[in-house]
């Protein structure tokens, strides 16, 4: 793992933009001729997504935080789903040097996780007050030394978020590539078709699940920090 302040990787940046654009186009299509009667097509899909997230966030987050957190987490989820699936599409160019999932590069998940870490601290300060926030950090569960436990807990959270997503998506892509690299082995085409197809389906499911886990954990962490009775 190399950390670079100045280096820049263009492929994940471009595919990240691509994911953005896809989500935005889907959103615009969904609200084109927006209907207040019975919704259909893309509008219906987006509405059920919004309602699902409203329920999800509503169960965990404080009331005043819920509307913003709903949109924030829904957008994160949509972006991650598209980003995760991007590297799996059976299209020309996918899997070459330029087109991979942006989440198959550590930088994007790590950046998101750090941003979420900061958001969580911010919501802690906002909803508990600075005093309550500091008490939560330094005085719970035991005075002064509680900070060790809390620091560990709080720092592990973004790290685990980032690596869970990155690892799953990278592994999905790598193994998919491997299954396409065996045609010269005996009955290699059979392996490609059987194992490759199975792995593709599995990876698609993993892509969805990882996007959802990343999002739900974000909502959960923020809700826990923002709830004053904790």
């Amino acid at each position, binding site marked *: 793992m190399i950390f670079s302040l100045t280096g820049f990787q263009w492929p994940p940046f471009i595919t*990240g933009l691509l994911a953005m654009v896809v989500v935005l186009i889907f959103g615009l299509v969904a609200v084109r001729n927006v209907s207040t009667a019975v919704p259909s097509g893309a509008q219906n899909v987006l509405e059920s997504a919004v309602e699902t997230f409203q329920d999800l966030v509503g169960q965990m987050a404080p009331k005043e935080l819920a509307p913003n957190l709903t949109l924030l987490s829904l957008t994160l989820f949509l972006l991650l789903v598209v980003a995760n699936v991007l590297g799996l599409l059976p299209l020309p160019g996918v899997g070459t040097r330029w087109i991979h999932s942006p989440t198959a590069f550590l930088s994007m998940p790590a*950046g998101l996780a750090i941003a979420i870490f900061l958001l969580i601290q911010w919501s802690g300060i906002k909803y508990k007050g600075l005093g309550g926030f500091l008490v939560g950090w330094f005085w719970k569960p035991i005075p002064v030394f509680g900070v060790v436990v809390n620091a560990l807990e709080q720092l592990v959270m973004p790290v685990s978020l980032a690596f869970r997503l990155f690892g799953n998506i990278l592994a999905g892509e790598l193994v998919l590539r491997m299954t396409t690299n065996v045609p010269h082995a005996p009955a290699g085409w059979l392996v490609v078709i059987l194992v490759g197809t199975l792995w593709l389906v599995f990876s698609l499911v993993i892509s969805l699940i990882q996007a959802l886990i990343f999002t739900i954990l974000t909502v959960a962490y923020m809700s826990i920090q923002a709830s004053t009775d904790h």
Partner: protein
Amino acid sequence: MSSTSLTLGNMIAGVLQWVILLALMRLYVYKPLLAAMQKRRDNIAKQITEADSLREQAEKLRQEQETLLKQAHDDAKLLIAQARREGEEEARKIVDQAQREASYRQRAALEEIQHERDEALKMIRAEVADLVLMATGKLLERNIDEKDQERYLDQILEDAGQLQ
């Protein structure tokens, strides 16, 4: 640089992509979508309220009509009873009048009969008196003075009255 490289530029870019997407989605997608959803919710709530009030009105109308119908029924019963009573009264009146008329006619007839009879008796009495005078005059063959005639006549009439 590989997948596991951590570059600050890409980290910031990833976050910016999320934030910019959120801003754009908020402005162009979530806002109209949430507004539409809210409007639908309001419409449905309004329709439910309207349906409730309509049902209430219908129920009220039904009760009113039921009351009216019942009242009309009662009125009809009352009218029929009244008509029957009036009819009976009318019939009784007619019968009474007929009876009255009949008895009046009967009485009139009886009176007339009585009257005729009296007339006839009077005539007969007068005739008898003349005959008696004639017969008596002839028998006595003398003139009876007027005083005597009157006395005799009275005597005879009295006798005739006793004969009756």
